[in-house]
């Protein structure tokens, strides 16, 4: 229902939509680090698959399983551990800002939450580690 003066009606306005391009994350350090963080999902997934294979092998008993033979797995595990730590640190650092808790009507400062999160992580790691090693023996 919009009105315009007729004739010399001018062409409909065209906009230009710039294409994003696959290399968008190479141009800024922050984007690159983000992609690394997201990429860590891939080695984690691969590690889990490999881990399942190792479990299956271990299930075969002392005959088929020789931990020493799997140095490749150990090396790969260490690499994956580094990736996992990177992801975990960024994620846990976030907890302080995301979680809003009020104790006694005052907001709990972010630092306290982050320290608590890392603390809980440490505790969980120790507990799980102890369980696994304990059962392993």
């Amino acid at each position, binding site marked *: 229902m919009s009105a315009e003066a007729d004739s010399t009606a*001018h*062409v409909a*306005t*065209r*906009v*230009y*939509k*710039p294409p*994003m391009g696959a290399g*968008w*994350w190479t*141009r*800024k350090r*922050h*984007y690159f680090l*983000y992609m690394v963080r*997201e990429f860590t999902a891939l080695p984690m997934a691969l590690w889990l698959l490999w881990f399942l294979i190792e479990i299956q092998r271990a299930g075969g008993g002392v005959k088929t399983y020789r931990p020493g033979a799997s140095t490749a797995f150990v090396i790969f595990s260490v690499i994956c551990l580094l990736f996992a730590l990177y992801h975990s640190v960024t994620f846990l650092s*976030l907890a302080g*800002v*995301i*979680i*809003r808790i009020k104790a006694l*009507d005052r*907001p709990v400062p972010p630092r306290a939450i982050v320290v608590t999160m890392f603390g809980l992580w440490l505790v969980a790691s120790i507990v799980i580690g102890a369980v696994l090693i304990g059962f392993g023996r």
Partner: protein
Amino acid sequence: MTDKRITIRAARFDPEKDKAPHPQSYDIPFSDDSMVVLDALNYIKAHVDGSLSYRWSCRMGICGSCGMMVNGTPKLTCAAFLRDYWPGPVTVAPLTNFPIVRDLVVDMEDFMHKLKSVKPWIIRKQEMPLGAGEHHQTMDQIDDFRQFSQCINCMLCYAACPVYGLDNDFLGPAAIALARRYNLDSRDQGTKIRLPVLAQSDGVWECSFVGECSVVCPKGVDPAKAIQQTKLDTTLRFVLPYGNRE
């Protein structure tokens, strides 16, 4: 005072003539240490090339009009000092991830639509009559949402967000921060009503926490925080019994 000069490379695009944007260089006097990129653009328009088109108004970082890419980073050109880019050249381009209408002017309609979609107004079950005076609210209660109320709608966060670039349907940082502003306002009772828009797949869940939005925000709104908080909030509402209360 030496006669300093600086080169500005501005993106030009006239849909009536051009297939795509192309840069045009302007060599202008850098006459004062307080000059900002916007001053440079204004000098060009007034004294060199009147056809350069861009938006601006307040020149003090509160109206949100003058957002552009300066050397690849989204900035308010009224607060981007030339001395920080010296000796240049300074590349000025329209905000990334938006359709370009002309030169340094982008299409804002998608953004406006998204702002409206989160119902950014006080929603109450029962309106209080004016004669009853104001709702009581403390400064602590205002502190809860103050940060998210500082958004000037400059869209730098959308330009910085690669998710928005890859998927234009993403609700986006500013819209979600605005929704959170109202959700946290003690006078508002509309969180449940805003939930469908926020919890949809193009809503908060599209965000993968790149975090660049908060880095570029000129007002310290921290939209990334608003989004992650909203994710937690919507999840708890889904998971906890009686979680979806108003």
